[in-house]
């Protein structure tokens, strides 16, 4: 049986790395009585797949993963005990289908710059934070291309960042919302974007949505 679940990663939980998350869920499953299936072979690993690894330091309100478990232990899912900040929002049984990682096409983030005077001299007292963000977004839209070094498995290559930005705008609440290309055909790390958009400024980043190529929430069925 495959169970898909949606969860958060907020607060101090942002410092838990991706591999550590696998361990964390594996142990939580064992504690609650959810019996997880393992891969065959010499070094069995748990059949747990995440839609998209999240970099350390980034919060998320929308993470999706799938785990294969023994049929009888589904009811124990409700007993999962997880550390503060990691909360299961929903879970359901799904049919075996296209892996989450292959379905994923877009990740949406909100970027909240937290400048102080020393860090962002451009931001003077006459400016409000949202004015500054709009200014930076205008600058961004005016650029034909923004080249940056992207690290890949084979070293690094120069790519145009703008090709990875599906949508970027100022929200009503006055923060930056960005939908970035994400998935098997390459993805853009929001940290790289924020480095270009808000240079030398501390930026709080939170993932708010994962979606497929039709921009449909990844947790929903195809």
């Amino acid at each position: 049986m495959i169970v898909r679940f949606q969860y958060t990663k907020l607060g101090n939980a942002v410092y838990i790395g991706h591999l550590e998350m696998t361990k964390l869920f594996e142990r939580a499953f064992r504690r609650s009585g959810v019996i997880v299936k393992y891969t065959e072979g010499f070094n069995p690993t748990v059949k747990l797949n995440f839609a998209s690894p999240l970099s350390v330091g980034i919060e998320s309100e929308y993470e999706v993963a799938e785990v294969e478990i023994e049929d009888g232990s589904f009811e124990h899912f409700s007993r999962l005990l997880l550390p503060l900040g990691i909360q299961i929002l929903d879970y359901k049984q799904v049919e075996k289908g296209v892996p989450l990682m292959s379905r994923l096409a877009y990740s949406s983030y909100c970027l909240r710059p937290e400048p102080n005077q020393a860090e962002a001299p451009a931001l003077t007292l006459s400016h409000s934070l949202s004015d500054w963000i709009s200014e930076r977004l205008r600058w961004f839209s005016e650029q034909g291309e923004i080249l940056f070094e992207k690290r890949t498995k084979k070293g690094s290559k120069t790519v145009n960042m703008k090709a990875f930005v599906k949508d970027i705008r100022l929200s009503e609440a006055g923060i930056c919302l960005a939908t970035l290309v994400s998935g098997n055909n390459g993805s853009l790390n929001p940290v790289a974007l924020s480095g270009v958009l808000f240079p030398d400024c501390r930026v709080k980043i939170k993932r708010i949505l994962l979606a497929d190529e039709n921009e449909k929430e990844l947790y929903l069925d195809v």
Partner: protein
Amino acid sequence: MDLSEVEKPSRYIGGEVNTVVKENPALRFCFAFPDVYEVGMSYVGLHLLYQMINEIPDIAMERTFMPWVDMIAKMQVHQIPLFTYETRTPVGEVDVLGFTLQYELSFSNLVKMLHLSGIPSRSRDRGDGFPLVVAGGPCAINPEPIAEIVDLFMIGEGEEMMPEVLNLAKEYDVRSAEGRRAFLESASRIEGVYVPIFYVPEYRGEVISTYHMFDGSPLRKVRRRIAKGSYRYTKQIVPFTEIVHDRVSVEVFRGCTRGCRFCQAGMIYRPIRENSRDSLLCQAGALIENTGYDELSIMSLSSLDYSEVEDLVSGLLDKFEKEGVSVSLPSLRMDATSVSVLKNIQKVRKTGLTFAPEAGTQRMRDVINKGVTDEDIKNTFEDIFSLGWFRVKLYFMIGLPTEQDEDIEGIINVAKRALWIFKRVKPDDMKKSCEVTASASCFVPKPFTPFQWVPQCSIAEFERKIEVLKAANPGRKITLNYHAPLESWLEGIFARGDRRLSEVIIKAVEMGCLFDGWSEHFKFDKWMEAFALCGLDPKIFNERERSYDEFLPWDFIDCGISKEFLWHEYQKAIRAEITHDCRYGCVGCGVGCLSPDGYATYRFSDDSNFKLKNRKLFPIAGENSEQKNKVRQKDEAEEREGRGLV
């Protein structure tokens, strides 16, 4: 402060499963491990004490660890003091700060942690508004090197002593100088408690001649505490990051009967006390259920000596096989029991096996009373290789008393034998070749062992011995590891040092020493500079031969083993005479584990009616002069991972 800028940030956030947070406790106690989180969290005693003390309603036990160097730098930039993991309370603001002393080379980290908390290093400089600083653990058996830093030591097993000390501290304002002093006077009457300011050393020349009490009363000996009851922890805190021993552990027994003469743990954890198989199975089940770990290890100083070890291991395997939980044994002796237990867990992955023959020749092993023969070694190799193992790691020591170059060369001979035997007995379908690693560490003589009087090798002598070892292994078939002697030599100073070392340690930390156990941070030259500045010759502590009549800096502590017994063992060692395992007959060490009817009282007290009738222990006439001690009880206390043995 953004933790993503430091290495492994999840080791600083706290909030792990099974942690306990208490608002406004009557007493906030911070347990401090003077090394990084991954090391500290691997110490089972932490988990035991954490659950036990947090069961006391109005006392909160919180944790802190030594931050790694990148984190220390960040904390200094942002002016963040050392904090507790449960409530982020600055460590300087807790009521009681307690360090565990697991190895001597963590003393500098202890002082650094005081600095990071804004607490003065010397106990005499701490006036109003500072925590009471206490310490315990195996290295507290010679507390003197840090006697001017720590207010109170708990010597021996903590299960009963620690709640007694903390409950008493609740009655005093221990954060004020006056309240602390009143508390210390009262606490010094608790068995096992040592308050260094009440003991004044007298020196004759360069060595201590005796101590007297601060008020002129006769010297009061501090008796190592042996707990009467046992405490079975059922939870361990589950870390986010991978730690050194990432598993749950159950203590199968405490103490050891082998009597290896180099081994301090084998002396200072006596008498031997076993947990029953049923209680261990029950505890193991609870631990797995409460943590979700997939690995369990059985722990003790020599697990295969457990009287029901085969039953226990098969019981554990039956219980956990379905759940995919694996069972591991930390260290193995080279004898028949090992192999028979290994056959049982053979189904489990064939990872490498680790053995500790400790010395390369029969004579040398007799000197240290290791009790493993050439025949045992041969049989063990034959058995494990024919069962399909191909990777062995062998632990040895160099610099042992009476050692000759042929004993060092013998280390390589043992490793070579593994290669030969492998070729002869390996299964027909074995495609792998044999991997043998021989590891040599530099011997450090420890207090309360028969070798407490012997000089440690000089650095030059250790280096020469390493060259002898390398020369004996010209090929590349055996991987040879050896520890740099500098760390062991410094460890030798702290192990048998006195309280004049407190100033040296404080000075060294001011000059930048920390993480001495981590070779990339170890600064030997700074240490030597600190000794020079304090006008102290380090060699008087480690390289000097002591006589039987000398008053040793730890002689005011009664660890239960008589000094006569230790000396007798030392003399036998020089003659390469062995002493048998005291399970098969009392050897008269003085700890007095015999019940009045002459049987070994062998179990933790909840199994108190149990006696091993088939193993009657006969006192040996003349050797057992300390029978008066026999009322001393047997029970449970601190855990100890077999250090360095996997």
